[in-house]
């Protein structure tokens, strides 16, 4: 299942020559990206850099105009998003994607149901058979600090807790690779700290690829950073290397000061 490259590194996800054209505009232009196993890889860039498009390509919610995507050595370029999700590559969304009118517990249970019961159409069984999943759901929620909110409606959670719920729901699928779309966007300092810790803990046994707007918030979090600008890779490396790169500094000029620290 693993794919060893010539340099000996172990990559979970590799993209080659990824390109997406929207009516003549190259939103993502010939991007190469390799995500190493058990690392946190951040994809950052200023507004309009194409990071969300790139993310949607990698998570298969968009089809690339050209280029290939390999997950665990297998070409997944043509596979539908639900299929790669079942193979262990699960994404989250920028706008909190919780099931708003369901309880926190039910949100996680719905993900567990898919993993445990598979894609079954059991409309003749009672919903009570799902109660057996609730112990595991509770322990997942404890892991993200939501143990006190089990029966709250997801819609009533504060923003940061919603993100935590979303991560718990994603973790319920026991993914190998988590694709997180701006997991820290719009959070207060306290929530950022808590969610960063959570992502770090999650990444001890899994791989995380996250899109972020701000360079500073991923500074302590990520092992590897890829900076996109105008749809192309501008720089790549760890925080120290990337933040010193003159091209990166220039790309962020015009952005608020705190975006590049």
């Amino acid at each position, binding site marked *: 299942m693993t794919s060893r490259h010539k340099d000996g590194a172990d990559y979970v996800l590799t993209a080659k020559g990824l390109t997406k054209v929207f009516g003549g505009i190259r939103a993502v232009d010939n991007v190469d990206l390799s995500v190493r196993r058990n690392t946190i890889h951040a994809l950052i860039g200023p507004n309009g850099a194409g990071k969300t498009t790139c993310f949607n390509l990698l*998570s298969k*919610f968009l089809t690339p105009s050209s280029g290939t995507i390999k997950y665990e050595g297998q070409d997944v370029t043509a596979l539908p*998003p*639900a*299929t790669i*999700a*079942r193979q262990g590559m*699960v*994404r*989250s*969304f920028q706008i909190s*994607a*919780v*099931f*708003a*009118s*369901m*309880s926190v517990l*039910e949100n996680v*249970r*719905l*993900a567990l*149901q*898919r*993993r445990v*019961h598979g*894609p*079954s*159409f*059991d*409309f*003749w*069984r*009672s*919903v009570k*058979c*799902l*109660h*057996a999943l*609730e*112990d595991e759901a*509770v*322990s997942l929620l*404890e892991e993200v600090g939501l143990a006190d909110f*089990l*029966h709250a409606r997801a819609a009533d959670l504060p923003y940061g807790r919603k993100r935590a719920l979303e991560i718990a*729901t994603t973790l319920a*699928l026991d993914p190998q690779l988590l694709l997180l779309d701006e997991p820290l966007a719009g959070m207060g300092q306290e929530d950022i700290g808590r969610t960063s810790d959570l992502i770090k803990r999650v990444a001890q046994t899994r791989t995380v690829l996250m899109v972020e707007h701000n360079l500073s918030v991923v500074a302590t979090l990520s092992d590897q950073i890829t900076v996109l600008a105008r749809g192309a890779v501008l720089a790549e490396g760890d925080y120290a290397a990337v933040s010193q790169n003159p091209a990166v500094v220039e790309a962020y000029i015009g952005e608020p000061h705190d975006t590049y620290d």
Partner: protein
Amino acid sequence: MTQQTESTTPAQTQNKSSGRNRTTRHHMIAFGLIAAFVVIAPQFLYPVFVMKLLCFALFAMAFNLMLGFGGLLSFGHAAFFGGAAYAAGHAAKVWGWPPELAIAFAVLVGAAMGAAFGFVAIKSRGIYFAMITLAFAQMVYFYALQSPVTGGEDGLQSIPRNSLFGLVDLSSDGAFYWLVAVIFMIGILFVYRVIHSPFGEVLKGIRENEQRMISLGYQVQRYKLVTFIISAALSGLAGGTKALVFHLASLVDVHWTMSGEVVLMTLIGGMGTIFGPIIGAGVIVAMQNYLADLGSLVLIVQGLVFIVCVLTFREGIIGVLAKWLKTRL
């Protein structure tokens, strides 16, 4: 509801399970009331009228499964209702089948049509889905209009009810009523189970956030297709039963106004609720029956009721009732 006690605080568990119990209790009461109505109704109402009501209630429940729980507005459900009515009529009249087999055949025809139409329609959404289902239903309508099998403008008339299992004579309305009553109650319980099944949970998830369900690995299109087929099969159950009740399967059953009426019933009663479509069907059928003297003015009254409903209580009659009772119905 007891498995989770160890890991949650007692207060929360109590809260949650009492909430669950309370809703379940309300549902049981509602079932009791409906069952009581079904048993007592023929004492003070004309049995054929009650049978009509039960058939349409079943039809509206089937439709609601699609709209309220699948989130898809079909504008062609008359095809399943009417198509199945012709199927049951043909089976009973030409092949001489007993009612249980004729109705089972109607369910199969409904399901098969649902599978065929759904396979194509499910790929589109919103207004396009409504238009494609309407187009299919119009094709069925014109087939029924032209084909000798369906009797053209005359439809299939004097469809016999035959004997249940070839033994019990059901030619009297009083006797046939009980078969319809049993079919109706089984229909409600079936819908209730579908909604409260693991499958039903997936439907709720799709209704709330389809993209997220895809990212969790659910094959959303397949769930929609299965829902469409279940809904079509139940519509077939309603249509087939109706054909035997009235001894008639006609163009009215496959006409697009029938598709419109079932939308009306569902919205007035409360879409996405369990009992709403039953109430909605009751309101519409009762209006058609008791205001029959007004002639075509009935349509204007229906229209006004619909406008008032949509403007003042969008959750439908049952939605408002549920709010008062602080429960889910």
